[in-house]
């Protein structure tokens, strides 16, 4: 039923998936009103294909090193488990005053996610599809997978998130005062989940139509900065043994819009520098560079992100998202919408 609820059609928008920003997912806020649903897959691997262990700086981190073999008296590596995060998310965004024009400044967005910790799909995609099927390179080994049996209760993942976004307005004096939304935004948000507790502020510009605007092709640029603080969830057996107390990420990219009026396809390329969510065995943040491609088509958004820009293949190594806009919510989602609007009354 939950799946059906999240897939309600007719659909029409970006979920704030938990963790995804730390895997290189595009992080520009969504300014559309309404519901959005989506799936997110994130892979965290203990080794790369050359058996270097994530977070270990010395040769001792190699899987073929005797000190890492069973029976050897070695220190526990910082990230000894491979994990796959699989989330199903439902997000709702609206203006703080829900009766205002669609260009009004202040918006909120809530996201609820449920999922399972399972490496089944991410391992298959990484090794069978990419490494073996397409690129013919060595598979990425796994020694310890956190949830071999993903149906165990401790393999369930939950997250809730909230964001307040402010989009700046351009005011033009034509025949009378007219208001246009600008590309500049600021935001503050939080995401509280089983893998991570975090809060952040962000600012940037999205969808700035500077380069080219023609009937069948448009080029836009976007960029943003996000600064956040993290806490490990207070569980006995957290997903990540060590996390950085704070981070910043810088993201920038180019978007091309094809066939705007006939069959709109938006292709975007983004590059992300992340100061590091994870710490190495010396306690230093492990910086990451990600490359992301995204495709907006119809009511759907596809996205794939990978750390190959940083030349690594372990830790937060790759992920993908698929989400869609729910244009006509049913009765149940309508009731949820009314409740969320009443929570955010500005007057």
């Amino acid at each position: 039923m939950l799946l059906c609820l999240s897939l309600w059609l007719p659909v029409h928008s970006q979920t704030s998936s938990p963790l995804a920003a730390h895997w290189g997912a595009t992080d520009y806020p969504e300014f559309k009103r309404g519901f959005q649903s989506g799936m997110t897959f994130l892979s965290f691997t203990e080794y790369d294909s050359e058996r270097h262990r994530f977070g270990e700086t010395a040769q001792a981190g190699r899987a073929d090193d005797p000190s890492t073999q069973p029976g050897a008296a070695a220190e526990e590596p910082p990230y000894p488990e491979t994990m796959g995060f699989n989330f199903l998310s439902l997000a709702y965004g609206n203006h703080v005053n829900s009766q205002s024009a669609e260009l009004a400044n202040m918006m909120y967005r809530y996201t609820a996610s449920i999922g399972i910790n399972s490496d089944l799909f991410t391992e298959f995609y990484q090794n069978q599809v990419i490494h073996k099927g397409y690129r013919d390179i060595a598979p990425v080994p796994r020694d310890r997978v956190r949830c071999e049996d993903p149906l165990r209760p401790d393999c369930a993942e939950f997250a809730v998130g909230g964001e307040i976004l402010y989009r700046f307005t351009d005011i033009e004096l034509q025949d009378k005062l007219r208001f246009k939304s600008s590309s500049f935004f600021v935001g503050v948000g939080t995401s509280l989940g089983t893998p991570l507790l975090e809060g952040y502020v962000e600012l940037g510009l999205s969808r700035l139509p500077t380069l080219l605007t023609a009937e069948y092709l448009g080029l836009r640029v976007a960029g943003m900065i996000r600064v956040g603080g993290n806490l490990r969830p207070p569980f006995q057996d957290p997903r990540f043994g060590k996390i950085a107390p704070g981070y910043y990420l810088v993201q920038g990219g180019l978007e091309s819009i094809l066939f705007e009026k006939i069959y709109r396809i938006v292709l975007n390329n983004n590059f992300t520098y992340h100061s590091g969510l994870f710490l190495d065995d010396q306690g230093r943040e492990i910086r990451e560079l990600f490359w992301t491609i995204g495709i907006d088509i119809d009511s759907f958004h596809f996205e794939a992100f990978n750390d190959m820009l940083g030349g690594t293949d372990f830790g937060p190594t790759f992920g993908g998202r698929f989400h869609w806009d729910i244009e006509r919510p049913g009765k149940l989602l309508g009731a949820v919408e009314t409740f969320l609007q009443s929570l955010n009354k500005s007057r």
Partner: protein
Amino acid sequence: MNPLPALIAIALLMQACGPTSQALFRGDRITVERNFVYLDDPVFLQSKSGYGKRTKGFFSFRLPVYFNAGKGDTLRFGPDGATVRIGADSARMRDRPTIACAADTGASEPDSAALANLFLDTGRTLFLSPGQGGKTRIELQIHCREYDPPWGRTDTLSLVFQKRTSGRIHSDQDFRLPFHVSYRGPVVSILVGLGLLYLFTQLGWLISDS
């Protein structure tokens, strides 16, 4: 295991969970091109994008809007209140043909017979009011007769509202919305999206390998 069948199954499930009127392979999306607002606009658009539906000589689409008026105000929407002009909103538009449309606020989508009756009722007037809570979203349905818009052309929807405050009539407000109709189809879009994703990922690997 190939993920493609699973994604197609999701698309079909999406269809099963949603209203049956959704076209899986071929449909119409309408997009309003107006990207600014005036403070005295009679209604505010809830979304600038929606679905269009072609039914035997009629083209119907839905515009979810919020009422923009003070307490006690009503918007009157007469039988000639909605028209579509072929072409963008400009001075040249005066010479273009005008398409008669009828507006409705019903949740259900009428069939062609009901649509024909809607046009026969010349005395029909639609009143929009904000309701008790002041949070009412109005699902304005527009049905246009003998209108078959091609994908990609910009036409202009003209909505003429008459605002009334405590029975007193204010001047008519002509709300003009340039829009275009484009293709939509969930299954085709999912397949095209996956194909493009694959293509661009391959391109990325090629670049990184070289």
